[in-house]
């Protein structure tokens, strides 16, 4: 009998607990309703991407020495480097270079290891195409620079959360010249530079 | 004839035709699922007839119990049974059908003569209409208390039986030793009764 009563009591307590948790959940959902939408209305508004954004890869044909480091460091040996050895100059002459962005995972290894910095990451992420073969970019296509979001008259550029002033959550209608929270990289650099000089002298 | 009488006559005709049509469909169609769905139609038309007789509560109860519960359970039964049997042509099947038909026609004739021959005592009292709910309640707890209680006991027994059938998880393929008398027990896997209630956790 006592055991049964204990079971009933436990069951009742668990039910009350469940009800309490559902109530807590409801209050969380309700609280979210009073927050501002974080929606970026995409074709009309776009986020300004961070400096380290890894978008479509840019390639400078003239800098390339056809060393094929990019191919070696690529997880799937994706870049296609077509060169011919020029006996006269005793140098490799690059003829074609292409990367298939339908397969690329944008890991950035090729950019990291390129000895002549002829590869770099852009901010372009709008790579939709009607045919997957269109994503196979050759050196000319990769040499194009994407249009900057901040310069596009059709687009309202929005700052990402980390680039907003302190305490501001809404990227809309920021006052001109408002700077982000914390120090900028060049400021940190400027602060650390003289001290480095001191240590060198000592 | 007033508007109300006209509406009543037309709806009676429609409901009667619907009821007979669906009932014939239940019996005559070869697809059992159609029969089950048409059975729902029969129940609905009967409920409609109750409505015409000013018995709204009975009509709603008819829909709730027969359409909402009985018919749905029949459908459940049909859809959950996954037994396929090839259709075998039985020789001289027409004898059975003819015999059934004869019996049915005979029963129908018998009932018709009975209905036509009985001097029905038609009550001239006005139907209670919406007061029926109260009246049914009073009757159930005074005149018909015993049948009411018996019916509830019967339902309880059916419930217990269903639970026992549902809890039986394992039936051995070969019969258990005949020496042990198990006339009144169902073959069942022995299990811990205390943990039974908590097995779903």
């Amino acid at each position, binding site marked *: 009998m006592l055991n049964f009563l204990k079971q009933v009591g436990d069951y009742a307590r668990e039910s009350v607990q469940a009800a309490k948790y559902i109530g807590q*959940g409801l209050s*969380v959902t309700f609280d979210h309703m009073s*927050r*501002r939408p974080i929606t970026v209305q995409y074709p009309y508004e776009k986020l300004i991407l961070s400096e380290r954004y890894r978008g479509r890869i840019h390639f400078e044909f003239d800098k390339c020495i056809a060393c094929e480091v990019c191919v070696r460091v690529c997880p799937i040996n994706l870049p296609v480097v077509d060169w011919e050895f020029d006996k006269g100059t005793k140098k490799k002459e690059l003829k074609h270079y292409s990367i298939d962005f339908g397969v690329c995972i944008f890991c950035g290894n090729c950019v990291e290891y390129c000895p002549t910095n002829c590869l770099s990451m852009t901010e372009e992420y709008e790579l939709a195409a009607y045919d997957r073969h269109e994503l196979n970019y050759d050196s000319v296509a990769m040499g194009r620079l994407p249009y900057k979001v901040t310069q596009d008259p059709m687009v309202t550029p929005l700052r990402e959360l980390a680039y907003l002033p302190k305490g501001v959550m809404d990227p809309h209608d920021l006052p001109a010249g408002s700077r982000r929270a914390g120090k900028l990289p060049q400021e940190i650099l400027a602060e650390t530079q003289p001290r480095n000089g001191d240590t060198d002298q000592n | 004839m007033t*508007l109300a009488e006209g509406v009543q006559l037309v709806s009676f005709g429609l409901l009667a035709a619907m009821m007979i049509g669906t009932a014939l469909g239940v019996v005559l169609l070869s697809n059992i699922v159609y029969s089950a769905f048409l059975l729902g139609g029969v129940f609905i038309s009967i409920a409609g007839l109750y409505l015409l007789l000013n018995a709204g509560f009975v009509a709603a109860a008819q829909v709730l119990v027969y359409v909402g519960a009985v018919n749905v359970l029949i459908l*459940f039964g049909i859809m959950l049974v996954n037994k396929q049997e090839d259709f075998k042509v039985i020789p001289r099947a027409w004898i059975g059908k003819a015999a059934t038909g004869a019996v049915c026609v005979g029963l129908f004739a018998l009932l018709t003569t009975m209905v036509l021959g009985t001097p029905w005592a038609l009550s001239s009292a006005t139907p209670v*209409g*919406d007061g029926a709910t109260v009246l049914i309640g009073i009757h159930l707890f005074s005149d018909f208390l015993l049948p009411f209680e018996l019916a509830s006991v019967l339902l309880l027994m059916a419930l217990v039986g269903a639970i026992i059938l549902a809890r039986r998880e394992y039936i051995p393929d070969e019969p258990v030793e005949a020496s042990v008398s198990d006339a009144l027990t169902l073959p069942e896997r022995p299990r811990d009764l205390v943990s039974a209630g908590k097995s779903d956790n």
Partner: protein
Amino acid sequence: MSQGIDLQDSFIQLLVQLGLPTGLAKALWLPLPMTLMLISATVSIFVTVWLERKISAAAQQRIGPEYAGPLGTLQAAADGVKLLFKEDIVPAQADSILFTLGPAIVVIPVFFSLLIVPFGQHMVITDLGIGIFLWIAMSSVTPIGLLMSGYSSNNKYSLLGGLRAAAQSISYEIPLALSVLAIVMMSNSLSTIDIVQQQSGYGILGWNIWRQPVGFLIFWIAALAECERLPFDLPEAEEELVAGYQTEYTGMKFGLFYVGSYVNLVLSALIFAILYLGGWESPISVDWLASILGISDTVPWLQVVTASLGIMMTVLKAYLLVFLAVLLRWTVPRVRIDQLLDLGWKFLLPIALVNLLLTAGLKIAFPFAFGG
């Protein structure tokens, strides 16, 4: 007790004064409230769909529909037009008769139940004696349509979804009916008008929600399950059953399921408002205010104000509950089928029975508070 405004009487009297026979005047009146109810039910779908989208968006910090009409109010209409123009496909191996009949059987009982929803003393299509019982009986017909569409689609997901829907509907009908029964016992009547009347007079304090604190929870859980709203939307669980019994449907037949589910949600909310939140009664009783201010309740303008306030109150309460349902949708995860049946049979049913017994006991002990 004021009689309030009686449109039917006034309408018939007006026509009789114009020289029409009484029978014809009544026949002319009959289709009016039904048409009005059908139209308002259809409009309520648009409102509910819009609310659902907007509240869902707000709960997830999105914007929601924005470009179709002001604040996206025409989005539901756009969706409906799209569904109307879609090709009506019946799968090759499906049973075309049952396939077509299924959605209709799902929708018709829901609209039928709107007969008994009152918006005021005389603002109801019919004041049936069986009132709320009609709703319970009608909502038990819906599983037949679900089984029909599930079976006829000739698709295992559809069949499973249909069977789940029917099982869920049957199991939650019982706690629902039991919690309604407790209310009926307190108001001594099945009629929705009487149920509201019994709660009137004391403003917000007289509402049944204070007398049935457990009953209204049971009712709301069971009603959500009946409507297949999100914690209980297993019959159409996308992750498991593609879309349940709706898998093979397109075009307006698919639309009918949605019409049915949204009208059912609004209907359940309306019924909840009538049973537990005092129907058309305002939180502060209008009669009481009028008597304090010394206005007779036969003054025409007061009657008009009371009637329109009553309609507004009923709709407002119902949409408050719709809001709660949408909020619950984004709070509570979907239950498993065994949890669903556990909750129905092992939790709600016993508690509903105990609640019924308690109500009966309290009714005998305190007849003044729990209906004599």
